């Protein structure tokens, strides 16, 4: 025992040591907590990305289906023939000369009680600003003004070159924005934070203005208005979503028809034309190239400058000169020859040598690594070059499908079915793009950068390619450029540099997957064209949440969507689980569960990490899989009169079916007949090898016809298969960009205020 003083020191030292240790413990615990939060955030992001890619591959399946029909299906009856013709006949596209003369908006009367914004031409800056304000106040622009604006927009766009050359001498700064996808809040925020367009403040909007979000129309109106007001300073590039075929699937078509019941169809037609006239790229000071998707190792800016961009109506449908000639040959004699025979609508993107059917669908994780088979880029495979033998075996398969579908067996060889070519073929206007030209455009609108060197087919998107750092370097060198700005891909921070900062991805739709999922960003190019990024997140609610709460909410959205997907594959999952259950005990290990789920869903997700949130009823590491599947179903069923397994199938193919219906409903009335529904379903299900009886189909059709009027409202159908997600009705519907509206009301739940009240805080 020492003196009092040293004892005091001794205790003090001990206390200090204790405090030190206590602090260290708390820090250790906290860091672990944060790490797990980070992991959850990453997993959530993976879920959204993998589901988005899965959705795109859905589209690939659809195209597969159509190309299969086109190539091999021989209708056996007049009915069938008619039906198919309806599905495939192109809408008559008005001739350029017609469109120019056409000022049909003049005949549209604006009622006296209309309180929305009015436009007069030539537009003045004040008009454009007033338009933004009107939209912010949730007003809608009358169809007459919409059409008028589109008319003027077209006139302006026609004068622009394919590659817009812009110089920073005139305006002090240039701001480049990426995908907006119908999210008006983000656009308004950008103008608020960065300033409205002006002669001193140039803007470039890099495509994908529409689809998914709810205000695509308004965004277009604002962008077009500013472009007319400041033609030298305001620039637009075409994105892959500026395409009427893509719009059918991703919501823009629906939005237009809902907002403009009388004139929607006309508006859509004009838009189809306007989209084709959008420039393909913008070049700043001959140094910075801005385009929507990316480049390939064959990208040729000279060719791109010279081609007639207007003829590339849709990057999903390649109607090219060479193909038409071949088609005419192979289909035998065509009735009308002037337009060189049949068309091939909705073909799979043919930019790289992808076989037309069936396509090997890769999970999004494998696409970039060396795991997927790399296809040499320079060899275009013509699907028509299918060997005779292959075709015969396909014919046999076809026959089987038809029998399954209940179509009568064809006794005699019928005349090969030829599509009706366009009516006004004789007017010499129809010079389609060459295959090469079409491919060049697809490449710049659809490609994505990858980390590995090289260039290979983009099998996830079904078109364009993945381009490596060497491709970028090569291109920049060839054209003496500094760097590339592109969009097309959602990034958590709203932007991302890659290829040694030679490629910048800029994405301006914040909260794209769900509220809180990602920031949006725009980039300003300063004096030496150095990029300066500004990020934002256009939602008040998220700022008030802690990181933990934000991550939880986004995670909940992702998990909800994922559970939906699991449900949609219930039957396949059950089968797969059974394989792991040798003793027929009804139980499988959690490890087997993870393996089984991946082998059915192919999402490349970390199932073991996600397991605690997806499976909450397991004992001893074993899972009663049947009751787990039942629990999934319970959450989802909204209509007991539709049999669960049918519902599952419908839900799984919902997106494709919706697209098919919209195609059939060519006058956009919103209805198809029961008969059309049945025929569609028959064809589709036989191709997809779904196990559904004829009676089953009839029952399904009848049960979906809720008001029993012999017609199916497309929205009725969507409602039936939407599988009400409970929390969606609390106002989170806007969290799921792909969730469909109920009853076609067209109005999403109110924005920020309602979202504040819905917080998923665990308690």
């Amino acid at each position, binding site marked *: 025992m020492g003196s009092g003083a040293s004892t005091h020191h001794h205790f003090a030292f001990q206390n200090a040591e204790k405090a030190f*240790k206590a*602090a260290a*413990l708390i820090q250790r615990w906290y860091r672990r907590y944060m790490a797990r939060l980070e992991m959850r955030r990453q997993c959530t992001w993976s879920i959204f990305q993998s589901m988005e890619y899965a959705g795109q591959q859905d589209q690939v399946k659809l195209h597969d289906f159509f190309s299969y029909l086109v190539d091999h299906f021989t209708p056996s009856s007049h009915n069938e023939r008619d039906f198919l013709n309806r599905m495939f006949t192109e809408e008559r596209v008005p001739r350029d000369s017609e469109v120019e003369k056409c000022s049909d908006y003049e005949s549209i009367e604006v009622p006296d009680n209309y309180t929305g914004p009015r436009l007069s031409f030539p537009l003045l800056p004040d008009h454009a600003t007033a338009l933004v304000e009107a939209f912010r106040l949730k007003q809608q622009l009358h169809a007459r003004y919409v059409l008028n604006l589109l008319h003027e927009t077209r006139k302006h766009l026609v004068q622009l070159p394919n590659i817009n050359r812009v110089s920073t001498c005139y305006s002090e700064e240039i701001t480049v924005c990426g995908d907006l996808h119908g999210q008006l809040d983000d656009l308004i925020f950008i103008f608020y934070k960065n300033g409205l367009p002006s002669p001193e403040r140039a803007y470039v909007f890099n495509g994908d203005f529409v689809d998914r979000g709810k205000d695509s129309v308004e965004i277009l109106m604002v962008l077009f208005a500013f472009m007319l007001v400041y033609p030298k300073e305001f620039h637009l590039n075409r994105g892959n979503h500026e395409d009427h075929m893509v719009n059918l699937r991703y919501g823009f078509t629906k939005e237009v028809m809902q907002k403009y019941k009388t004139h929607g169809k006309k508006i859509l037609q004009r838009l189809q034309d306007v989209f084709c006239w959008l420039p393909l790229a913008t070049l700043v000071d001959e140094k910075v190239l801005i385009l929507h998707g990316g480049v390939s190792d064959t990208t040729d800016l000279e060719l791109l400058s010279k081609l007639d961009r207007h003829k590339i109506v849709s990057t999903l449908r390649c109607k090219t000169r060479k193909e038409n000639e071949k088609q005419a040959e192979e289909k035998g004699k065509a009735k009308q020859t002037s337009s060189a025979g049949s068309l091939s609508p909705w073909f799979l993107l043919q930019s790289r040598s992808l076989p037309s059917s069936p396509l090997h669908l890769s999970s999004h994780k494998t696409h970039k690594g060396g795991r997927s088979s790399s296809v040499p880029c320079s060899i275009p495979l013509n699907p028509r070059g299918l060997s005779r033998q292959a075709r015969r075996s396909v014919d046999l398969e076809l026959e089987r499908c038809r029998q399954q579908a209940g179509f009568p067996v064809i006794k005699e060889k019928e005349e090969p079915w030829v599509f009706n070519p366009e009516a006004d073929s004789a007017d010499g206007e129809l010079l389609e793009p060459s295959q090469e030209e079409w491919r060049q455009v697809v490449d710049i609108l659809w490609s994505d950068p990858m980390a590995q060197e090289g260039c290979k087919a983009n099998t996830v998107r079904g078109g364009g390619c993945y381009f490596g750092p060497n491709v970028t370097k090569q291109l920049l060198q060839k054209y003496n450029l500094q760097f590339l700005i592109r969009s097309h891909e959602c990034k958590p921070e709203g932007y991302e540099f890659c290829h040694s900062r030679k490629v910048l991805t800029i994405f301006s739709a914040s909260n794209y997957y769900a509220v809180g999922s990602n920031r949006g960003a725009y980039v300003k190019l300063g004096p030496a064209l150095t990029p300066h990024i500004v990020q934002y997140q256009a939602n008040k609610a998220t700022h008030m949440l802690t990181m933990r709460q934000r991550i*939880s909410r986004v995670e909940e959205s992702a998990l909800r969507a994922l559970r939906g997907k699991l449900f949609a594959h219930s039957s396949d999952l059950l089968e797969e689980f059974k394989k792991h259950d040798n003793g027929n005990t009804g139980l499988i290990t959690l490890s087997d569960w993870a393996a089984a789920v991946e082998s059915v869903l192919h999402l490349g997700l970390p199932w073991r*990490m996600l397991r605690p949130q997806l499976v909450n009823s397991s004992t001893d590491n074993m899972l009663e899989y049947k009751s787990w599947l039942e629990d999934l179903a319970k959450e989802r069923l909204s209509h007991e009169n539709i049999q669960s397994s049918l519902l599952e199938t419908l839900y799984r193919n919902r997106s494709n079916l919706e697209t098919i219906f919209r195609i059939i409903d060519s006058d956009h009335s919103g209805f198809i007949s029961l008969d059309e529904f049945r025929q569609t379903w028959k064809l589709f299900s036989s191709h997809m090898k779904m196990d559904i009886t004829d009676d089953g189909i009839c029952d399904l059709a009848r049960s979906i016809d809720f008001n029993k009027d012999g017609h199916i409202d497309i929205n009725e159908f969507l409602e039936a298969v939407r599988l009400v997600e409970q929390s969606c009705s609390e106002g989170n519907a806007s969290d799921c960009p792909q969730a469909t509206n109920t009853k076609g009301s067209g109005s999403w739940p109110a924005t920020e205020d309602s979202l504040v009240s819905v917080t998923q805080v665990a308690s």
Partner: protein
Amino acid sequence: MADEKEKESAELAVADLQRKVREAFEVFDHELNNTVDVREIGTIIRSLGCCPNEGELHDLIAEVEEEEPTGYIRFEKFLPVMTNILVEKRYRPIPEEILLQAFEVLDPTKRGFLSKEELIKYMTEEGEPFSQEEMEEMLSAAIGPESNFIHYRDYITMMVIDEN
């Protein structure tokens, strides 16, 4: 006989652990080439259920790094080390009661709370100090904007529930 069975189930258990490790690793393998940025290793290890402190983490990283550090960790090196850690159940997480005791050490007069200033002082000056970012983040979750105190019992409860 029984020995064989035991051995088999032990092997299965290890195989399962390895799959877990692979999954966690792949979440951060952005270039899909079986490597992750060394800065993510801490996150991966911790999300696999382990709770090393910073010093221990540094040692682990040294174990799995290349001889000439590249800034990336390869899966082949990471897997055996991590599997071992899991099999041996090292770096166990901290039970709630111990955590509570730690807070109570810092609150010797047992008021039930710490002031904002006290928390900042301890977390940034003692133990393995927080960076400013870490401190701000902890404060934003622990203390409301108007308040100046952290009631640690409630705080712990909230965080623990959130985990589960």
